[in-house]
């Protein structure tokens, strides 16, 4: 269902179906981009990111981007843009106590949040809340108090994810300097989003390292520290996870799914799938 809803507090929600190319444009506010069906490509500078239903993208205010989808593909995308003042109020509610919020000097500081613009996992609470919100909006719900309640909780969920994916993972890196940890993690996230976006291609370690602006050895060592997996293990898990979606939501034969998620050999795919999920792909499809 297609709609664009601007709330009285200037939060904006956009739902789009169908593939369409959108030329270069700038985000006016902090924006969360979800794809509930199919996949959508975002070009941000030299980066080309693909968003699938298991991930979402965050864009900071003022980021230039363009989007595209595969021809003829049915894509369902959903975007939430948070007004600056809403974001500021949200942050203040979590940062200050009631006395400070009511005091005279409150409100002098201005928030200019800059989040790590990368792909985050779309799962757990944020998925439940966004899907509930979308269902209400699809059904024509107009109650802005309730919509803002969902948006407030979506931000709570996002900050939890940010803490898990950025802050905690940076802490795991074996560097003394905090600035170095943050910079290395930023580059590792470039590698991670490259894997997310090209999971079904042949990816060499050299390509990955070059994309992350790290040497191969440095990438291997730090990737494992931050994510607990080697890039290869991460890629295999991602391919298996995406094969679940294809097995559950489409009717492609298993042999075709193997190729679609980037495996070359059906038998090794089936072996890995069974080892990982304790069920064969065919039985999973029958039970899903």
């Amino acid at each position, binding site marked *: 269902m297609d709609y664009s809803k601007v709330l009285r507090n200037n939060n904006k929600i956009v739902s789009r179906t169908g593939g369409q190319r959108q030329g270069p444009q700038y985000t006016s506010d902090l924006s969360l981009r979800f794809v509930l069906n199919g996949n959508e490509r975002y070009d941000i500078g030299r980066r080309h990111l693909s968003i699938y239903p298991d991930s979402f993208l965050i864009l900071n205010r003022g980021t230039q981007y363009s989007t595209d989808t595969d021809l003829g593909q049915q894509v369902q995308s959903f975007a939430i843009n948070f007004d600056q003042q809403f974001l500021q109020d949200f942050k203040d509610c979590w940062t200050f106590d009631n006395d400070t919020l009511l005091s005279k000097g409150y409100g002098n500081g201005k928030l200019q949040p800059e989040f790590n613009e990368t792909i985050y996992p779309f*799962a*757990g609470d944020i998925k439940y809340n966004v899907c509930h919100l979308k269902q*209400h909006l699809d059904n024509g719900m107009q*109650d802005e*108090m309730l919509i803002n*309640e969902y948006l407030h*909780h979506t931000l709570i969920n996002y900050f*939890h994810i940010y803490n898990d994916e950025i802050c905690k993972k940076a802490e795991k890196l074996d560097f003394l300097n905090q600035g170095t940890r943050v910079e290395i993690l930023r580059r590792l996230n470039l590698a991670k989003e490259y894997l997310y976006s090209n999971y079904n291609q042949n990816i060499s370690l050299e390509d990955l390292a070059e994309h992350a602006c790290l040497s191969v050895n440095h990438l291997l060592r730090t990737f494992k520290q931050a994510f607990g997996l080697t890039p290869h293990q991460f890629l295999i898990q991602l391919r298996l996870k995406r094969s679940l979606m294809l097995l559950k939501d489409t009717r492609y034969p298993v042999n075709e799914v193997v190729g679609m998620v980037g495996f070359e050999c059906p038998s090794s795919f089936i072996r890995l799938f069974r080892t990982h999920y304790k069920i064969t792909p065919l039985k999973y499809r029958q039970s899903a």
Partner: protein
Amino acid sequence: MKLKYIPVYTADFEGQIDFYTQKLGFKVTGTMTFYEGKESTVIQSDKLNVALLVTNNDGNSDKSNIIINTADCLNDYHVLRTAGVFFCKSPAYLPAGLAAEFLDPAGNKFMLLEERNYNEQ
């Protein structure tokens, strides 16, 4: 066997019934006598398959803890708050899912719980 009744005791019987019927959407479906000389009012909601038994407490200070399962905690929290229910705990994330809590006039605690599967593959 099935769970059928949850007893709630109150000193303000009328206020308690008003709260359940006007704010929570229950309906009075009858009365029942469990103990000699002590009548309870049975109230039910279309959405719940358990009835509440509202009884004058006569010195009984027992409080009930009732967990209501919801498919959408934020929506029901908003609907009930709009109806005038005061929540002592706004929606918060638990290992089991999203939950909010309110008290009825007699101090019985109700939890709205939206169970969530965090291990979904």
